[in-house]
């Protein structure tokens, strides 16, 4: 009897140690996999940084290394000289400000009106806006080019900004959010004699700030990164935006100065990276809510 009891408890002990060992193995495998994923995504980014800091001699050596031997910033100065980057920055800032600005303002006002302002059949107007989501800009590229050309706006800021200024997604996102706000909040303001614009600015906006921030960040990064339309609609070097401008540094014969080009790439990437580091919660949450909550 005693023997049996002993052996059972020993077995249990063994099972417990086994389970513990398995848990530890699982943890270790988990960490290894995580490191692998981070390396696969991170190394290309590290390669940009190291390329920008390397000398030509290191870049064009027969045995390239990941880390630069004598990090230096010459490539950044050379990149700034290689193309009119001051203009690219200016153009990107202006078009992002105008384009994303218009989107944010219109998303807020449209969503507010669709939820809080009375209008016959307003839900059908919402459907009309939603249907626009089904038409990507690529499909309407040709007619829009002809329209902008007809208005003599090729190679101008309004020409870059106008076709993409309207917003269905932002409207959708904010409308969903506004619908969750207590109606008493708005009614109270209205009873106090506040007009819709006052109510929107002083009652709704403060409460809806996180949702508006998400919409704003998504619009800003999308506009800053936009490539196809600015490529088509700008015709001179001084009107290019950053993404279009840097791609012209590539040498068609394959003799690209990689150090300079990597430094130039950082000119485009770093502002968005900084925004992302500062506000990634808004960006990530905004993207994820679209999928899960709808």
């Amino acid at each position: 009897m005693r023997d049996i009891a002993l052996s059972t408890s020993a077995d249990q002990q063994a099972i417990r140690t086994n389970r513990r060992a398995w848990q530890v193995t699982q943890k270790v495998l988990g960490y290894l996999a995580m490191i692998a994923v981070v390396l696969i995504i991170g190394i290309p980014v590290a390669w940009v940084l190291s390329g920008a800091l390397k000398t030509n001699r290191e870049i064009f050596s027969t045995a390239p290394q990941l880390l630069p031997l004598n990090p230096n910033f010459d490539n950044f100065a050379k990149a700034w000289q290689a193309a009119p980057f001051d203009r690219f920055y200016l153009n990107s800032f202006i078009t992002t400000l105008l384009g994303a600005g218009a989107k944010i303002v219109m998303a807020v006002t449209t969503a507010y009106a669709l939820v809080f302002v009375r209008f016959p059949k307003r839900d059908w107007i919402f459907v009309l806006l939603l249907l626009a989501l089904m038409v990507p800009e690529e499909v309407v590229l040709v007619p829009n080019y002809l329209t902008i050309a007809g208005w003599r706006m090729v190679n101008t800021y309004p020409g870059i900004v106008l076709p993409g200024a309207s917003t269905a997604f932002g409207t959708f996102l904010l409308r969903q959010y506004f619908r969750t706000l207590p109606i008493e909040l708005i009614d109270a303001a209205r009873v106090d004699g506040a007009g819709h614009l006052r109510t929107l600015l002083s009652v709704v906006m403060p409460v809806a700030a996180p949702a508006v921030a998400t919409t704003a960040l998504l619009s800003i990064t999308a506009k800053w990164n936009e490539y196809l339309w600015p490529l088509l609609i700008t015709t001179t070097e001084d009107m290019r935006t950053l993404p279009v401008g840097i791609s012209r540094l590539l040498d068609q014969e394959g003799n690209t100065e990689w150090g300079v080009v990597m430094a130039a790439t950082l000119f485009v990437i770093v502002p968005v990276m900084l925004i992302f580091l500062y506000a990634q919660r808004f960006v990530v949450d905004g993207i994820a809510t679209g999928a899960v909550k709808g």
Partner: protein
Amino acid sequence: MQLILALPLLNWGELNEPMSSNRFVRIARRDWREWLTFAAFVGPNLLLFGIFTYYPLIQNGVLAFSNYNLITRSGQFIGLRNFETVFGSTQFGKILSNTFVFTTVSVLLLIALGLMVALLLNQKLRGRNAARSILFSPTILAGAAIAIVWIYIFDPRFGFIYALLRPLGIPAPKWLTDPAWAMPAIIIVYVWKNLGYATVIFIAGLQAIPRELYEAARVDGAGALDRFWHVTLPGLSPVMFFLVVTTILSSFQAFDIINIMTKGGPVNATNTLIFHLYELFFVQSSAGRAAVVAWLLFVLMVAVTLLQVRYLERRVSYA
């Protein structure tokens, strides 16, 4: 745009709600002011959609039957000739199959890898938040910049992959100039850029699965694999379907990477519908033929979206 994603997730029932309780009340003076406010708030957005989204769809239809030339700025009705030229060209079959291969492989890889990484980063591991951030960062960076970076990585003489393979004595492929390697290269970059997006959506989906389901399964004696098949996968199905559709749609629009890395080459190896559209319009200056391709793209995308709406109604299980 991945923005189309929102459409099928809408609760369509809500549209049939009565719009307001005083619907049949006589229109008072105040209602006119409400209407004016509404027009002022919604008008600009709607007007821009009219000019730059709805009207162009009609104009596309007209252009497809004309020989409008971008340079001479004139054209006339030519019947179905644009359709014959576009669909009958020797490269068109290649373009369709490229589009199909690019979309299918990218979407499968994004779903499979995205799910794996999401399961991994959903574990209680130290530093998983930092890992998620790093993983997500390529998604928000300019496709143009990423394309340039990867040209350097793929460079067969000085690139990172060359540096990696050199000590092993394996010659690096001429990724972007070899017709056999160009499409895989484009797909690698596309998947690398969008993996973070798929992962974030999957993680959100995983966290939306009620904990009780796992506990109930455990009480019933289900092992880890059983729980994955019978709780996790069914629970993820709406999110997974959403991801399939959005990644299909955005893969149809992948232009920046292709234009910068390969310009559709070598010998049309990476020429897809969206690149072909660009090529027809801005290289060949033929608005009519570009409009034909634009229509084809539009029809394909609407078909995928409608499929999503129907499928979501029927088969997807909501845990």
